């Protein structure tokens, strides 16, 4: 100890005095120590990947090394499944608790090998698919290794295929799980239920109150809101890579690829083919294949050989008939091929039907109506077929393609039942990414015309142009529907004028002082704004008449989800520069209204302040420009609707000027504004602005009619 201390403190000084031999020796030693330190340090503080942490906790093992559990013949058997179970009767919600993440905790029992009294194993220890499924759960956010905190328990007993296990003994194995408790909060995954000759539609293993994620439920065995219907996984999904094929007409109209159809079904299908000729293709098992060709990957029609599942991509509709069981693995292949499944299996509960809207991806035909299949399918409009093809492929990609996808969808469904207020919406479950991208869901979707009596709040952003500000205040205060005026004082170096100096107006006037001179201050959802309608107006817009403003408010009431304003602008695609350009000249079209004078819903203030995509808000504040363009982008993007320009007026600032307002003509200004449009379009990832060729004028505008009978006689012409 002392030695080390001594050498350590004096080390560098000592070295020159030592013999060369020793020196080399010490240096070597030191470098080893140093390396050792570095190595351990790296291990300690390197960010651990999941793999490395599991490497520490679980030594590398084979499934054959897992502990063996012997089940005595008289060990208890759970009750049969209780058909009346529902979440509120058989599920213990108290285990899940309330947590801010709204995620259930799932525990997985460790793997055991179960043998009966004579040492014969009860089932395969675990199948590849079940191992994948448990791995997926273990890697997911739902997983916990703490049995005491778990809300849901997943036994490692593999019951995916009922034919691969011994029913009674498997049940005994379940019953001796440490937290079994009559199966409460236990989740079993089964894809192939039943066995000959009855082929029950739910797993025959007695399981008491356990939830069942089953493939092939019928409406009689499925406990709605308790069980989860899952697909039958097709191992081909992992083996064959079928690239997505664009929607559109395909070579065959109807195709049947199943091999073991009941003769009765087959004869019906063949009748269909006889009737409709080449557009129907009925495939069967190949009888004369040379050895070595996997029979599962080939299908035959007469002597023609087809590759499976590739042939599925050649057809618009693919028949999925029930076999002995209701759930068929072929459904997964069909979806993968982007072929629209025609499901003929009465009483079958389609996979994940609790959340997936199968009407958008499939055609369900009652068994009785099989002979009419052709005409029924003919009646589906082409556009809808194309969408169904896309939808089918999307369902496969999101919920069928791997055991992981199946496991996570199942857990999410159960999670949504326990935390319904945080549940995933219909759109999130069902809309393919392309639709999510192109569609808009307007946050103000209910058609409401707000009452006129509420009026609007005018917000004037000002810095130091007091004289012009007072003029604007005086003008705006004449508008009948004004209910409050808010001045946002953006100058931190100067105090606003004294109260006595402000114009006397009939509505409350509030001055808000800001902490920083930022443009986004004008769009802050101040508590003082008590009306839905907001009029944003610059402190130099002195030419708008009271009639124009009142009319603008009336127009806004009819279109409360839009920007309704006066100065119109346009964006154009500059073909030479290959980018967007800002346009303030007189044009036939409008795509923006400037918020120098515009009405909009207070909701958009909230969006601008808290939900503006990317760095736009800060960017605008830093550049001190384009907050109005940003607002136009935001509103158009969230509503998918155009702006409304009101009245023909083009001049707003100085009555003497001949052209449009001086500032806008400044060349650098135009360049900057164009830059803004390009910047925003890249942040939004699209150009949300909509171009329109119309504006709103009062009904009797310009009519030869007594002025005093007009509601809005004083509408400026320019």
């Amino acid at each position, binding site marked *: 100890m002392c030695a080390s201390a001594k050498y350590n403190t004096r080390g560098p000084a000592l070295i020159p005095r030592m013999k060369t031999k020793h020196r080399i020796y010490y240096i070597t030693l030191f470098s080893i120590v140093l390396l050792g330190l570095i190595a351990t340090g790296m291990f300690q503080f390197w960010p651990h990947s999941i793999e490395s942490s599991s490497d520490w906790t679980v030594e590398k093992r084979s499934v054959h090394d897992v502990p063996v559990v012997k089940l005595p013949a008289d060990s208890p058997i759970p009750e049969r499944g209780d058909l009346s179970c529902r979440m*509120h009767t058989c599920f213990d919600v108290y285990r899940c608790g309330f947590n801010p993440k709204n995620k259930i905790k799932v525990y997985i029992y460790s793997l055991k090998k179960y043998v009966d009294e004579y040492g014969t194993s009860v089932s395969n220890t675990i199948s590849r698919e079940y191992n994948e499924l448990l791995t997926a759960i273990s890697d997911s956010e739902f997983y916990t290794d703490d049995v005491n905190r778990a809300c849901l328990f997943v036994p490692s007993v593999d019951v995916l*295929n009922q034919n691969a296990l011994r029913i009674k003994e498997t049940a005994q194995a379940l019953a001796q799980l440490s937290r079994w408790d009559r199966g409460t909060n236990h989740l079993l995954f089964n894809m192939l239920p039943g066995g000959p*000759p009855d082929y029950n539609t739910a797993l025959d293993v007695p399981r008491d109150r356990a939830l069942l994620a089953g493939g092939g439920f019928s409406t009689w065995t499925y406990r709605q809101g308790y069980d989860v219907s899952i697909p039958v996984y097709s191992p081909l999904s992992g083996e064959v890579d079928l690239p997505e094929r664009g929607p559109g007409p395909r070579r065959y109209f109807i195709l049947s690829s199943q091999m073991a159809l*009941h003769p009765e079904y087959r004869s019906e299908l063949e009748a269909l083919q006889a009737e409709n000729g080449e557009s129907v293709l009925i495939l069967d098992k190949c009888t004369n294949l040379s050895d070595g060709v996997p029979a599962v990957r080939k299908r035959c029609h007469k002597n023609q050989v087809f590759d499976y599942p590739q042939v599925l991509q050649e057809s618009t509709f693919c028949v999925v008939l029930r076999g002995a069981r209701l759930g068929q693995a072929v459904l997964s292949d069909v979806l993968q091929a982007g072929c629209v499944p025609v499901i003929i299996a009465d009483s079958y509960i389609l996979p994940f039907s609790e959340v997936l809207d199968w009407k958008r991806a499939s055609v369900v035909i009652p068994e009785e109506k099989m002979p009419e299949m052709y005409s029924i399918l003919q009646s589906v409009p082409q556009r809808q077929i194309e969408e169904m093809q896309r939808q089918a492929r999307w369902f496969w990609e999101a919920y069928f393609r791997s055991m992981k996808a199946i496991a996570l969808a199942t857990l999410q469904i159960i999670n949504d039942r326990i935390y319904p207020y945080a549940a995933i919406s*219909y759109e999130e479950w069902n809309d393919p990414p392309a639709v999510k991208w192109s569609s808009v869901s307007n946050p103000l979707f209910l058609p409401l015309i707000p009452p006129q009596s509420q009026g609007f709040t005018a917000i004037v952003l000002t810095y130091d142009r007091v004289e012009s500000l007072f003029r604007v205040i005086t003008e705006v205060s004449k508008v009948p529907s004004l209910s409050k005026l808010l001045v946002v004082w953006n100058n931190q170096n100067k105090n606003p004028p004294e109260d006595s100096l402000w114009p006397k107006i009939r509505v409350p006037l509030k001055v808000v002082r800001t902490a920083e001179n930022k443009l986004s201050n004008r769009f802050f959802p101040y508590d003082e704004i008590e009306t839905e309608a907001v009029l944003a107006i610059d402190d130099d817009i002195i030419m708008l008449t009271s009639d124009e403003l009142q009319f603008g408010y009336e127009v806004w009431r009819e279109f409360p989800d839009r920007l309704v304003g006066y100065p119109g602008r346009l964006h154009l695609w500059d073909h030479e520069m290959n980018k967007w350009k800002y346009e303030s000249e007189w044009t036939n079209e409008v795509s923006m209204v400037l918020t120098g004078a515009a009405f909009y819903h207070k909701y958009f203030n909230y969006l601008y302040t808290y939900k503006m995509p990317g760095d736009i808000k800060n960017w605008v504040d830093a550049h001190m420009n384009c907050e109005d363009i940003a607002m136009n982008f935001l509103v158009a993007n969230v509503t998918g609707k155009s702006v409304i320009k009101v009245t023909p007026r083009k001049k707003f600032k100085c009555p003497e000027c001949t052209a449009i307002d001086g500032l806008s003509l400044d060349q650098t200004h135009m360049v900057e504004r164009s830059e803004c449009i390009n910047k925003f379009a890249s942040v939004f990832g699209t150009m949300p602005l909509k171009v329109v060729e119309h504006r709103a004028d009062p009904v009797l505008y310009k009519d030869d009619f007594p002025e005093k009978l007009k509601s809005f006689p004083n509408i400026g012409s320019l």
Partner: protein
Amino acid sequence: MQTRKKYIFLTFLASWLLLFFFGGDQLRRFAFFSRRKVEARRNWPHWTDRSLLKSFADPEELLSDGDPSLPSPRERQAARLSVYKNSRCRMETCFDFSRCEKHGFKVFTYPRERDQPLSESYSKILTSIERSRYYTPNPEEACLFILSIDTLDRDHLSGQYVRNVDEKIRSFPLWNGGRNHLIFNLYSGTWPNYTEDLGFDIGQAILAKASFYTESFRPGFDISIPLFSKDHPQRGGEKGWLYQDSIPPKKKYLLVFKGKRYLTGIGSGTRNALHHIHNGKDIISLTTCKHGKDWEKHKDTRCDKDNVDYEKFDYQELLHNSTFCIVPRGRRLGSFRFLEALQAACIPVLLSNGWELPFAEAIDWGKAAVVGNERLLLQIPSAVRCIHPERVLAFQQQTQFLWDAYFSSVDKIVHTTLEIIKDRLLPHRSRSRFLWNTLPGGLLALPDFSTHPGDFPFYYLQHGSSPSEKFTAFIRAVSPGGAPSQPLLRLIQAVSRSQYCAQIVVLWSCEKPPPPSEKWPQSTVPVTIIQGREKLSDRFFPYAAIQTDAVLSLDEHTSLSTSEVDFAFVVWRSFPERIVGFPTRSHFWDPEQRRWGYTSKWTNELSIVLTAAAFYHRYYHNLFTEYLPAGLRELVDGLAACEDILMNVLVAAVTKLPPIKVTQRKQHKETVSQQ
């Protein structure tokens, strides 16, 4: 000395290294890094031989599932029919689809018997059906049968309980074990258990019942309906109370409840606990013990104080001023509160375990209500506090949409029930959940027209598509001359020059046959002549000839320039759900005569755009012909007028939006003097 030092030093180093390389793991776990140890999860092992594991089923087994020796599909179906009856009924086992094939979905109501008193609600239900477009007086044509026996109140302690129902229905020759019958019920069972028992055997009839318990609900067969009061209006219905979208919700209270507390018996568990979440500030949960005659017998220590607090708040006031409303179970699972909260835009927080929610087969309640759990009452306040303001706003709007689309009148409740059953008959011609849950709702999206959202005027934005870029000009000609008149020819010329015109369809509504094709002008777009009858309502018939989304409806005497047409069409593409046109009218309330008035004078406002020159979506032809009550069309035909007003009323009722007038011109008729 040197050697010793070296030795010690070496030993020390060696042991140090050894410690780190072999014991580092233990050190990390126990000594310095105990916190990290907790975080390191014990994940599912990555088995070394995981790639060698066998698949759960070999491919042969998966693909050749099904054994030819099994009973044939037909035999199996027959077996199912005999097994799955009564409480296990499903459409395919208990409903005779063949009855609906020939005549479509027709509903027959048993003739009302004079000595048989009907409750107000039940006679409203029957009236709704008899006025619906599915009604048939002929039982031979019928697909669905409705009893004339009032089955709404099956609480045998109630005054409206009808006795001996079993005997009566057995005497009906059409009863047929209840097959294809639909039975409405609001109250079942009685004190103390309030079972689901109706007091008679419904057999294979479909049950449309309020307060349905999931366990007795036959999925895909029965229908859960909302509980509504006897004052619920026959049709029309009150509006919702939401008139503005505020964010954050500008309501005084977050969560309210005011109602009875059952001291004993079924449902008392939940109601007795409700006072726990009351905080007197933003959560108001008030219960009174005053319930029934002998409440004082069971009264507990809280009762007196609760009863006093209870009187301090007004239920209507709470309803108006709260964001969320607790809708707990009563004795039965459903309560009036549910519809009250829905109308009030007070987001229902349901505490009714096992309640099959009304029309859940169609309606996605997750978008309009918070489905709570009776057992987790105490979590409710924090759960609703965590809901984001945007989500609250969406919830509020959805309550209003659902209320107005499906619940605000008995007509709507009954029609929704019928449409859900109709959708089951032809699954491939039924509404997707999207159509049911998006404005304007399933009753107004006719699957007979299309099942594709892009074909309707309402869903372009949500669907991410846009209306077609061409229009069809649809001209109603009444020229008595037997040849196309001059104004008509000019109109065809002007319209056909529009760059957006795809085709012109002339509806020839004269007695005389249409002139031969050579009499019609040569134009760049195809002109189709349809021989119509003289009925005015024919002009809104969904003719197959109309292929585009947009229809430009024109009268023979309309005068328009090509650029007017172009402009109006461009405007219509921005407002595809509205009527966009030229000549306008307005309506007003005449306080003296206490009725509505119509004016064609120049006014500052407009509410009607005449279909003599207007663009609208072709789907409105379908709604006009199929959705509107036949009586209204007959009225129009009888008057030989007002078809345009009816169209405006229809579109406004569907969209809740006014029409749009384009251009300043007021006069669009070619008058004789102009010629």
